[in-house]
Structure formats: structure tokens, C-alpha cells
């Protein structure tokens, strides 16, 4: 049942995702006179970055955990004003499972609400902006399925929205700039952080000094984190990785080893660090299934993922479909805001202000430099033992994946999945996809999830029939 007014003409623009990119695009587009529908799976705007603490937690100052909270607060206020004026229809708790062409417009199919209120929704629009963001990249290691091993971004999200700590003594590990932010927030919230274990070397950025110099803001951010860590006596171990988590009921300690340039653990360098939680993440992966389902072209990025191929005005390769934010490559909240504004101008048929375009180019160059530095080295698969689960949903071990590759003729993640069921469970390979592709000796493959989320069969059965 359409939740938008289906008897009037479809709105000019539907935006999927109310994170920094989608939110900025919505308010800018509405300001430029477009009628906009903004759809998001979450309950509140802000996406993965801006998170509201749950009410009643007594957290009066969410801005303490966010850089640039004001940039968000202004846009949220603008969203409410545009909603009031009828220029934006904001639909939270709507998970879009597919976007399909519908004559010269588009239909977005969504699952709306949860529990007993769950309903089917079909929305229509003349243009679509996909601002679906990213999810965390996980590289498995022995013990990663133990309780109290959490995603680094997940730990940050927990802190921001609920002010909940995963433990009292939390090792932060993986790769990417997010680790420093996470360690800083954990420490600020009262946890001890015995070490931040970073697989890359920050010296790798040195090769991209020009990009860094053009982004003093970013440098400042990293410096802030760095000095915060120093103040709190947090050890930063670069070129190191957690190669195993130990414990029975929950994690009790981790093994940390030094890595060579390809992320291969160096023999004789392993040591144990006691802890009661581990926050681990290896960067972010653009969430592309709605776009690839429409046939949008992708490009390989410096961090070893795939992102959408976009032109300077945020167009995808499919006419009428646009994208902004992390779907175009991981680059941070600032860049996402900027790209949302650029897309809104272009969709409204306005000239994109030159200053926006310049800042975008600068931030994208910086993101590429950072991505190259944190790209996982091929040697990480050396952490896996044959009995390590790689796909948690279906409990598929590294040994079975290696058998599929070495003995059964699988050469890519899809065939490994067919032969082992890895990636067939609830998360549909979001968790194990990058790891499985690496074990198959394959590059990253474009997301193939024709359904972006589980859909009640009843919703499908009750869709209006095509031509009678």
C-alpha cells in the first residue's frame, strides 16, 4: 500500500538514506524547489555518523562524541521545517528492498515499520538518489566469534546512541582512521584501552603528502585523536594485528603480532594482551545492492572495495539514478554532506557551486590516499586456521572454503558460496564477503543482493499484479 499520496503526481526526487549525504541532499533539494521523499531504514535521521542517544539516558550533549554536530543539527532543523511546509516527506523506519524502473519514473519497494506494524510500501519518484552509506569490513581471525568481540564502528555506534561500553578493558584493532576515534570515545567514556592495534603504518600517508596538505582539517582531526590518545597513555601499535582472541565465555585476552608489509604475521613477535572486550574493524565497505540491482557501474577503489562510478555531479551510469556519500567511496561525513549538496544542485538542474566541486575533489583525493594506506595486505589470510569460522551465519570454516577453491574449482566468492553456503545467511555476505573473496583469490565483486533486506513473503504475494 503506497504510503505516499499516490493520487498526485510522483515527487521529483526520492532519496534512500538519511545519513549525512541523504539529509544534506534532501534539505538542499527542497530549498531549490524540488518535492522530495526521504526514506531511511533507521528511526531517526543522521545515518551511521550522527546518532542520537536514546532518550532517558541523560546524555544532554551528543555533540561531545561528534565532530561537527552543528552541521547536522542545522540540517535536521531544516528537514523539520521542510516537512512542515510539505516540501519533504520524511519516512523513517522504511527499508527499501528494491528500486525498479516504472515507465519514465521509479518505484521503490520498502518494508515499513517493525513488529505488528510492519507493512509494505511502494513509493514513486521521477529521480532517485541512493545515499545508502557503508557497512563495516570484517576480516576474521581465530576467536572473532567470541562474545565481547564487537565491530569497531559498532562500538562507536553503541557509545553514541546508548552510551554503552562493550567492556572495561577494550583493545581496539583492525585498520583505518576510525580506530583512533573509537579508542578516543571509549577512553572518554571511562574504558581502559590497553592498545590500539593498527595493521597499516601511518607513514604510508607520507607518500600522499600533497593530499594531506590540502586537507589541514583532516590532519587536525587525526592530531586531535592522536593527542587524546597520548594524554590517556594509550599505546598505538602500527603494523600490528590481533591474530587471535582467547576466552571461553567471552574474550579474555588477544594475541597481537607484528606484520610485514603484506600483513603477514612475523614469527616470534606474538604476545598476549589481557582484555575483556575487543573492538575490531578493517574500514568500511560501500553498500551498493540497490544500485547494482539497477545496473549502475562500479569502480575499484584504493582501499580494495568497490564503489559506484559517478560523474562530477554525482550521476551513476543509469540515467535518473544519482548517488552521494560513501556509496561513491569511503570518505567521511564531511564529504558525504558535500556530495549530497552537489547532487541536489545537479538534480534540480542548477549549476553546482564551484567551491563545492573544489572541496569535493580535495576530500576525494584525501580519501583515496587514506584508503590506499589502509588497504588490507594479502597476507592477512595467514591469520586464519582451517577451523576458523569465516561465515558466521552458516558456520563455514576457512578450511571448507579453501577446499572449495583448491579442490573443487571455485574461483570467486559466488562459487564458494554455492559450494559452501558461505554468505547465504541472514547478513547475506555483508560480514564474510570480503574475506571469502580474498580466500577465493578474487577481487571484490559487486554486491548482488536483489533484495536489500528480508521481505515478508506476504508483501510480495500482495503486490499489485502487472497488467492484470
Amino acid at each position: 500500500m503506497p504510503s505516499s499520496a499516490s493520487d498526485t503526481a510522483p515527487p521529483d526526487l526520492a532519496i534512500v538514506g538519511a545519513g549525512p549525504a541523504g539529509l544534506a541532499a534532501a534539505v538542499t533539494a527542497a530549498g531549490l524547489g524540488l518535492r522530495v521523499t526521504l526514506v531511511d531504514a533507521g528511526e531517526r535521521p543522521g545515518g551511521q555518523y550522527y546518532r542520537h542517544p536514546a532518550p532517558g539516558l541523560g546524555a544532554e550533549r551528543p555533540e561531545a562524541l561528534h565532530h561537527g554536530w552543528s552541521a547536522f543539527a542545522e540540517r535536521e532543523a531544516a528537514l523539520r521545517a521542510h516537512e512542515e511546509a510539505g516540501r519533504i516527506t520524511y519516512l523513517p523506519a522504511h527499508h527499501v528492498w528494491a528500486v525498479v524502473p516504472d515507465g519514465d519514473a521509479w518505484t521503490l519497494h520498502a518494508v515499513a515499520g517493525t513488529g505488528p506494524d510492519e507493512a509494505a510500501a511502494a513509493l514513486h519518484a521521477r529521480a532517485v538518489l541512493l545515499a545508502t552509506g557503508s557497512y563495516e569490513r570484517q576480516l576474521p581471525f581465530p576467536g572473532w566469534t567470541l562474545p565481547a568481540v564487537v565491530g569497531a564502528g559498532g562500538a562507536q555506534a553503541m557509545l553514541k546512541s546508548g552510551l554503552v561500553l562493550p567492556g572495561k578493558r577494550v583493545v581496539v584493532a583492525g585498520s583505518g582512521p576510525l580506530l583512533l576515534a573509537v579508542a578516543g570515545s571509549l577512553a572518554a567514556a571511562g574504558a581502559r584501552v590497553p592498545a590500539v592495534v593498527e595493521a597499516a603504518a601511518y607513514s604510508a600517508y607520507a607518500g600522499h603528502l600533497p593530499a594531506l596538505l590540502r586537507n589541514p582539517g583532516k590532519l587536525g582531526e587525526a592530531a586531535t585523536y592522536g593527542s587524546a590518545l597520548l594524554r590517556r597513555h594509550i599505546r598505538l601499535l602500527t603494523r600490528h594485528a590481533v591474530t587471535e582472541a582467547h576466552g571461553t565465555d567471552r574474550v579474555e585476552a588477544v594475541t597481537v603480532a607484528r606484520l610485514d608489509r603484506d600483513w603477514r604475521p612475523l614469527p616470534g613477535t606474538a604476545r598476549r594482551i589481557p582484555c575483556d572486550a575487543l573492538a575490531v574493524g578493517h574500514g568500511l565497505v560501500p553498500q551498493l545492492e540497490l544500485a547494482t540491482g539497477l545496473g549502475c557501474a562500479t569502480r575499484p577503489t584504493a582501499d580494495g572495495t568497490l564503489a559506484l562510478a559517478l560523474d562530477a555531479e554525482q550521476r551513476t551510469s543509469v540515467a535518473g539514478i544519482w548517488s552521494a556519500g560513501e556509496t561513491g567511496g569511503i570518505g567521511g561525513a564531511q564529504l558525504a554532506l558535500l556530495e549530497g549538496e552537489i547532487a541536489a544542485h545537479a538534480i534540480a538542474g542548477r549549476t553546482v557551486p564551484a567551491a563545492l566541486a573544489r572541496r569535493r575533489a580535495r576530500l576525494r583525493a584525501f580519501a583515496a590516499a587514506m584508503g590506499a594506506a589502509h588497504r588490507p595486505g594479502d597476507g592477512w589470510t595467514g591469520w586464519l586456521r582451517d577451523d576458523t569460522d569465516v561465515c558466521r551465519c552458516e558456520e563455514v570454516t576457512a578450511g571448507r572454503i579453501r577446499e572449495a577453491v583448491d579442490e573443487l574449482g571455485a574461483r570467486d566468492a559466488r562459487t564458494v558460496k554455492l559450494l559452501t553456503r558461505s554468505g547465504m545467511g541472514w547478513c547475506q555476505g555483508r560480514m564474510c564477503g570480503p574475506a571469502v573473496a580474498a580466500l577465493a583469490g578474487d577481487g571484490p565483486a559487486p554486491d548482488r543482493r536483489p533484495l536489500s533486506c528480508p521481505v515478508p513473503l506476504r508483501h510480495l504475494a500482495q503486490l499489485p499484479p502487472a497488467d492484470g
Partner: protein
Amino acid sequence: MSKRHPLDVVIIGAGVVGAAIAYYAARAGLSVAVVDRGPVAGGTTGAGEGNLLVSDKEAGPELDLALLSAGLWRELAAVLPHEIEYEAKGGLVVAPDEASLGALRDFAEGQRAAGVEAVEAGADQLRELEPHLAPGPVGGFLYPQDAQVQPAQAAARLLAASGASVHLGEEVTGILTGPGGVRGVRTRGGELLAPAVVNAAGTWGGRIAELAGVSLPVLPRRGFVLVTEPLPRVVRHKVYAADYIADVASGSAALQSSAVVEGTPAGPVLIGATRERVGFDRSLSVEALRRLAAQAAALFPFLADARVLRTYHGFRPYLPDHLPAIGPDPRLPGLLHACGHEGAGIGLAPATGVLIAAALTGARPPLSADPFRPARFAADPAG
């Protein structure tokens, strides 16, 4: 590329059909190579459901092939690793009304004469066989010979058991010929020389034929499958409504579907598959999903509350008369075809392998391959 010992045959295609041919050709003592541009089961086999059905085939050459295959799959299940998930679960065809039950009865009569076991079940017996079936069907037929394998595993294990030399990630770009006929194939990596080449390229078999200078009108017929969340194992058979049989035999281009519903060992229920001729169109058809879901819920109302976790599609290889092409091509000595199995290639693979092995060695085939003559579509069928 390995040139250790001379090859007897090169098989193009590491789908289930190519894998079964490799298996039976190697067992017949031939030295075999299999070449595929992608991984094993990377074509339509990876999109298939693994139904080994006799129930949906009317009496005729395809049913004979299916019956031969049903026996061969039983033998294979005893020798291949259990990962192929062979399960002789039986099929249950239900009739919504007396008219379709009558039609089903006639259909089953013909099948029985060909050697199919078909047991009529009344409305009450249906409920015993499938307790969660919706009220409504007036009766149906149980087909104990219908079975099931996991297609990608079946292809991979057949190929591994064949001992053939396997060349994956190598696209065939040419068929080498000489005065005596076929000499081998050219791939992006080099040449593989053999006096016989088998075209087991499935939906892309027409292009391989073209490379060899002959024509074979293989076309794609798209199908979607729905996969639910893991559910308690309550669907016991392969269950489908009687109108499915009409769809399979239909040549219509329009979207057709009659959902086959079945539980899997891992828990998800598979609902498939639609049939439509839209070329290699990879876009999502919401209408296909709607029909599958509606039909599945009509058979098993509890499914309406289940979640669909994923959907996938594939392109069945079909020929104008809906029979595969199996056997030597009289237009080019040394070239054999084994493609165009449409929605039954997994089921028909072992029998196809046996027929091709017989053609390669000159042995007597267990049944006549004449109805599957590859040159039957040529303007002047020279053979």
C-alpha cells in the same frame, strides 16, 4: 597449458552437463580435458534448483532420458561424496479441481506406460503426505522417483571424480579444424589439441557452434527463484500445482510460473521458478517475485509469514522443440553437442554423459539419441 599425454576429448563447459560427460568419458577410458571461461558451476548450473524430476515430463524422449538419469543419479549418490545432498524425497503434484485432476490422471497414465511410478492420492492422503498444505486441492499424484541434488556440489564432485584435467578461467575463442575435422580448441591461454570437442556450453552453446561454423539455435529462458529464511522442516516433498506441467511444455514468451515448493536440509524453503523469454535481461522482475510468492502461499499458507531472504535468477538454455541437442554434429566430424537442456539439465546430466561417452567410444547407447540430433534444426539436416 599441460601437454603431458594426448587428449581424446576436450569438453567446453564446467557446468553439470560438462562435468557429467567428463565423468562418464573418463570412466570409459578416455583422456579428458574440461575448459571453462569461469569457475565450475559458474553458468546456469549455479542458478539451478537441483530438482531431478520425472513427474513434470510427458511420455516421450525427454522422459526416457529423465528415467535413465534417475537411475544413474541413484548410482552416483552411492559413490560421490554426501555433499551433493542427493535426496530421494519424491514429488507431489496437486490438482486444484476435478478438471485438472482428470488431466493429471491422463498425464500419469502415459507416464506409467513409460516406466514412471505415479501413485494417486486423495484429498485426505495429500494432507497426510503434506500436513501443512492448504485445504482445497481435490487430489494429486505422488511421484516417488523425483529426487534432489545440490547442483553446484554435484557438478564440482562429478568433475573432481572424473580425474579430467580442468582448465578454469580460460575462454574458448576458436575451434581448431583440419582436413579430418576437429583438431581441438583455442583458448585465451593457448591451444588444447584433441580429435573430439564437446560443446557443453549450456545457454552459450549457440556461440560455440558458431565458432565451429555450424548453427544451433540455443536461446535463454529466464527464471527467478525465491529463498526463505531457514524454517523448521515441514515441507517434505517437492510440491507443485498441476498447471506447472503446462508451463514447462509451453513455448510462450510471456512470464509463466507455477511454483515448486520444497524444503532444503539447511532449512530455507526454495520457491521456483518462473519462465520467461527476455534474452539475457538481468534486471529484477517484481512481477516474477509476486507470482512465486502468491503461488507458494496458496499451496502452503504458513509461508505467507516467512521472510524471503534472497532471490536469484538464471538463464535456462532452450532449443525450439524443448529437447536438448546431444550427439555428434554431422556437419563437422569430431564436434559433438550436449546443450539446450532448458529447465532440466541437472536432472538430465548423467544420461547425457552416458550418451556422449557412448558416441565417443562407439559403444551402444542405452537408449536412442536420435530425437536429440543436433542438426535437426538445420534447413537441410545433413544426417
